[in-house]
């Protein structure tokens, strides 16, 4: 009934040098189907959605769209910053051809879903990017277009709302509405999409059932090491028909959001919901982790710590915190089992390879199957006397996700930099959670203190303006009070400021300052009310 066809189109610039954003891309999406589009940045994913939403026109080829289309392409699509949330809802409705009256009927639903009741009469230029996203997403859901185009927007916003969105999208999928979902997170794509198209350099690299294409994609993106790993059959299998059954299982990240991926050093929580038919007092819950090639990596059960547990008739939940995960990059599967004490071999319920866990590859890279916390230390040239004991390599006590191989100390405790404890910069804008822990903000200045060990280093500072800005934000970076560089931040995308640091002979205290020209409201820990105007974070510290 509904069909959509793209054939050999591209997007030529006016310049002599032609660049085709897309070529030979033909596909059909039937009504009720969900198509995921994955690929690296700049591969042409977003161009496809722009073409479908008619903001771009193909130079060659044709597109047939049957039905109304809502494109949730970028933050604040079709919003006017000077209008209030309420006015923007109606304006956005008109762009979709939904009249004022109809929109009035949908209005309560939109506001309720967006949870923006308190701010709905505030001009949205005062909104944070998370709030923009809430508004846009809520409108998209309420308007119920025939075809929903979604482009990565869910990456913004707090964990609780992201989960709400994903649940809502799952509902859209269940309701058999057509959806095109663009993301570079293969895990989310796999969750929502029946079919997946992998775009590379403007061409279709692979197209087919979600499972196959994503497997292929992950193998290719995770480097040669994992590509060599033979992928064992990973189809889930089920056994047992006892009185206790697993009814639901999820992996949660550190924020309690469902996840299928983690980085080495991160912690995930396995949550299993079970249903018991009757009272039993000798039940054991177990989980086993297998690598995709079948290697048995780890196995654990409640028997180790709790012994047999009792279950009541009805539903219950068991959780297991796993981590910090010392696993190398690759795909893993978790099998779940419930058995009665002493009956390990004939479980009440067994779900083999029930959950997938993709371990990512952190920047800088790891080789090998396991990640071992470590710290390198190279002594400076000395008199030839053997190093004393306290100069020997010390094991790093605490393994956190990004600082694992970084010779930087945490800032000293009791660092006194500002009035309000909660005004940290790092949180919320940082790809790696909870690090660095204390970037302090005073008026126009943010400071972080780090100790540089004997190594040459590179400091990467990321900055963005979560709000739509008319003019760029200017600032300076200082190290120990000395200006090192200046920077400008204009958009909501993170911009990296890279600072090479000179090698030092002994651990040196570095006070890194970020000094802005104007006063901005920095990222505040805690989401509501969200008044962030500027996000700044020390993103990464590399050794060379």
């Amino acid at each position: 009934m509904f069909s959509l066809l793209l054939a050999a189109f591209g997007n030529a610039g006016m310049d002599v040098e032609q660049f085709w954003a897309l070529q030979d891309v033909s596909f059909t999406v039937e009504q009720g189907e969900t198509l995921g589009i994955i690929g690296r940045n700049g591969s042409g994913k977003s161009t496809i959605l722009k073409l479908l939403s008619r903001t771009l026109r193909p130079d060659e080829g044709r597109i047939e769209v049957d039905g109304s289309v809502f494109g949730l392409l970028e933050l604040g699509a079709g919003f006017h910053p000077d209008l209030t949330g309420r006015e923007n809802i109606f304006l956005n409705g008109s762009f979709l051809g939904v009249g004022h009256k109809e929109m009035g009927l949908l209005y309560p639903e939109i506001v309720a879903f967006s949870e923006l009741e308190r701010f709905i009469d505030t001009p949205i230029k005062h909104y944070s990017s998370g709030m923009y996203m809430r508004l846009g997403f809520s409108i998209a859901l309420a308007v119920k277009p025939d075809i929903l185009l979604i482009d990565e927007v869910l990456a913004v916003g707090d964990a609780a709302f992201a989960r709400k969105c994903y649940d809502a999208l799952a509902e859209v999928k269940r309701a058999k509405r057509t959806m095109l979902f663009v993301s570079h997170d293969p895990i989310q794509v796999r969750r929502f999409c029946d079919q997946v198209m992998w775009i590379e350099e403007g061409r279709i690299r692979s197209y087919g059932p979600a499972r196959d294409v994503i497997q292929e994609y992950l193998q290719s993106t995770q480097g040669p090491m994992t590509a060599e790993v033979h992928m064992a059959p990973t189809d889930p299998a089920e056994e047992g028909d006892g009185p206790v059954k697993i009814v639901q299982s999820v992996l949660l990240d550190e924020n309690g959001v469902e996840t299928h991926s983690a980085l080495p050093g991160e912690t995930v929580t396995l949550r299993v919901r079970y249903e018991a038919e009757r009272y039993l007092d000798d039940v054991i819950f177990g989980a086993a982790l297998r690598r995709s090639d079948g290697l048995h990596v780890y196995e654990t059960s409640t028997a180790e710590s709790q012994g047999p547990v009792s279950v009541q008739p009805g539903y219950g939940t068991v959780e297991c915190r796993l981590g910090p995960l010392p696993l190398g990059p690759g795909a893993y599967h978790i099998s779940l089992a419930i058995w009665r004490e002493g009956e390990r071999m004939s479980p009440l319920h067994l779900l083999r390879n029930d959950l997938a866990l993709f371990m990512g590859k952190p920047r800088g890279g790891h080789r090998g199957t396991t990640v071992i916390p470590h710290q390198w230390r190279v002594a400076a040239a000395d008199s030839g006397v053997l190093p004393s004991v306290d100069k020997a390599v010390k094991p790093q006590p605490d393994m956190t996700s990004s600082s694992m191989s970084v010779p930087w100390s945490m800032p000293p405790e009791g660092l006194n930099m500002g009035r309000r404890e909660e005004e940290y910069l790092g949180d919320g804008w940082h790809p790696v959670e909870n690090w660095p822990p204390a970037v302090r903000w005073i008026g126009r200045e943010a400071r972080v203190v780090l100790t540089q060990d004997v190594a040459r280093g590179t400091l990467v500072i990321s900055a963005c303006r979560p709000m739509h800005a008319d003019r760029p934000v200017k600032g300076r970076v200082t190290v120990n009070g000395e200006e090192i560089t200046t920077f400008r931040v204009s958009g909501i995308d993170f911009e990296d400021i890279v600072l090479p640091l000179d090698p030092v002979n002994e651990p040196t205290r570095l006070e890194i300052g970020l000094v802005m020209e104007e006063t901005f409201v920095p990222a505040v820990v805690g989401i509501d009310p969200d008044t962030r105007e500027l996000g700044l974070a020390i993103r990464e510290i590399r050794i060379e």
Partner: protein
Amino acid sequence: MEKSEARGLSAIAGAVSEVASFSELLRTMVIRDLKLRYRNSVLGFLWSLLSPLLMTLVFILVFKVLTQTDIPNYPVFLMAGLLPWIFTQGSVAGGLHSVTGNANLINKVYFPRELLPLSVVLAGFVQFVIAYILLVAVLVAFRIELHATIVFLPLIMLLNLVFAAGLAMVVATVNVFFRDLQHLVEIGLLAWFFLTPIFYTLAIVRNTSFLGLDVHRWVFSLNPMATLVTDYRYVLTEGYLPIRHTAVTLVVALFLFGLGWYLMRRYSYRFAEIV
């Protein structure tokens, strides 16, 4: 031949019906534009009346007090011409940035791009009509003699609207590809203002000949705004409508509107790439 004509006609019909189907959006955009114009200003909508009034005061000061012009009812004379000028000038200036200033919309949502300049022009038109109605009310209140030709006033306003909309669409499109236009338009509007009999009458312009051409005739017959401004005055206070000049202006206005529409239709698909 016949076929292509039919196709051309159906394309026009399609374009018109598309814009019609977006009429709700156009309405919302006009309201948005009106809201935004005076948001954060204390007097708000009053400014659409206040600013022509203040401008009139300036002209009275300069021309009535300083240069002793002998035009009767000079404030009425000024207002009658100044209001349409402000509307037209605002349409051109607003239309100029209507596409380039809305990159956010162009890049993210689809709608007929004509709506951008059209909404700016219509918002200005709403203000203009309200201001003009008030002007007529004031004339009535002050017992200034009006003529039956006042019934033509809406027609002249409509003509002015078509003219302004056409011009706005042309500059909006051209400005996307040649941003130089915005500088030219600034100067052009200034020159145009002086070449339009707003604060003076056609009568004071001497018949000068330049390179054998009648300057008076060239400047004023070919300036649609000159015709429009005098039309407004004539139907209001003279009881006369210069049919021939008005007809020429109608042709010019329709041509501009057609050109603007054509340019928008023809090139709007490139907007998202460039803006």
